[in-house]
């Protein structure tokens, strides 16, 4: 068993950028082959982001980078033997999450959300804002879908929840494409991520 960060209260908040050497050592420990190591790094990074996001951490990417930085520094320091790097990463992530929660601002939950009590004029302004916002979102969505290949665009729209929500439809869809359900799911996750990021960027540019 590798050591776990919870056994190691000496981990402190890291500072500054990782050195090239620290980063390389982390990659080497993930996989001997550099390409595979980079893939593994990306996979772990991605999992970490979801791990933090799903626990309502306010800045998942920052906490992810903090986790990976700490792991890289620890490996580079070589003070103790870490046999299972991935398990160590998850341990550090839990540690970082605990710290992150302490400093996190309270999240405003919808149920705690302000009692809007809008008057007619306020509601009118709200309606205008919403209308403009949704028009803008729709324009951005169209632009972003337009950037996909025709196949991806058709596939993306066909996979929508109102079209093929149940697993059976999706399984059939995968079979027709000569893919496993799992492979199609990954493709759709990536595709959706791409379109969502595109729409987000588009909206930011127009703000």
């Amino acid at each position, binding site marked *: 068993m590798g050591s776990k960060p919870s056994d190691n209260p000496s981990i402190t908040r890291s500072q500054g950028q990782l050195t090239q050497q620290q980063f390389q050592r982390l990659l080497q420990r993930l996989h001997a082959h550099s390409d595979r190591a980079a893939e593994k790094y990306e996979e772990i990074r991605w999992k970490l982001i979801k*791990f933090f996001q799903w626990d309502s951490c306010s800045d998942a990417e920052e906490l992810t980078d903090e986790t990976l930085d700490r792991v890289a520094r620890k490996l580079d320091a070589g003070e103790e033997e870490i046999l299972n790097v991935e398990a160590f990463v998850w341990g550090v992530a839990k540690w970082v999450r605990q710290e992150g929660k302490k400093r996190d601002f309270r*999240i405003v939950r919808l149920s705690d959300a*302000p009692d809007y009590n809008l008057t007619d004029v306020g509601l009118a302004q709200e309606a205008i804002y919403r*209308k403009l916002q949704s028009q803008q979102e729709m324009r951005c969505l169209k632009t972003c879908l337009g950037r996909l290949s025709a196949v991806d665009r058709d596939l993306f729209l066909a996979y929508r929840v109102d079209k093929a*929500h149940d697993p059976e439809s999706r399984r059939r869809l995968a079979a027709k494409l000569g893919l496993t359900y799992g492979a199609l799911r990954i493709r759709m*996750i990536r595709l959706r991520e791409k379109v969502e990021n595109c729409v987000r960027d588009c909206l930011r540019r127009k703000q």
Partner: protein
Amino acid sequence: MADDPKSKLTMARFLLGEMQDEERETFEQAFLEDTDLLHALMEMESDFLDLYALGKLPQSEKERLERFFLADPHRRERLSFAHALAAYPADETAGASTPNIETQQKAWLRGFKFMALPVAAALFLAVSLGIAWLLMTNHALRTELEALRRKQTIDSQRAAILQRQVDTLTTELRGTNGLAQQAKVEAAPGLSQVSFTLQAHAVRASGAPPRLAIPASAKVVELSLIFSSDPFVHYHVFLETAEGNRLWQRDDTKSNYFDRDSKKITVHVPARIFRPGDYIVRIAAGSQATQEDIAAFSFSVPRP
């Protein structure tokens, strides 16, 4: 593994925040180690957002999603996308096919468009969740979306007329803006709430009112209003434009003691109702017949 009903139930409970700490930790460990499970969770997360955006969930299940799942700011941001996707015309699919598409895929996709039309949709939050299978035809969905769009257009037209009136008055009465003197601003970067503290003026102050710069990203404006102590317990808070148009109000608001001589009321107002211009927040107490003004706070919102 992630696709059997029992696993789906577990995944849904995780996303809905219905797990105890210990179970949650075990489940987290599972998805960190099992990439397929992580993918299935991500898919379910998107499906939840889409179902919510489609507005097809029963009220109880809608509230269930709102309690935890949609409390997450990142998911709320993604929900905007889901709303846009839900409103995307059902029959608006791809444009011209690109020449390098595999024939098999093209053939299938053509077939799928026909196949998809009568397909009933949306199942699952379901299984034992009670979020139930959503059965709806695309036709029914399109009809409903069309009806919603028509309603939205009418509402927007009504709203636009009111807005033009408000804008005209606001432009006429907008004065020069001075520097903020009374407002203390606490904006947390990346968060959707911006907070201001305003101190009541006993008499209408001379000079420029404080300027409250509300970032475009803000969803909620928290106003902490400090005023001299009085014997009242319950208050009404009104937000009005300088022209006297009441934009927002909250009744039955309680105060806290700020210090020995003053009280504080904190209210949350949706950021989107603020447009560049001058505003007054009034605190009043008493019943409608005997309502008494307790304090007033004026401020201006500058152009971004």
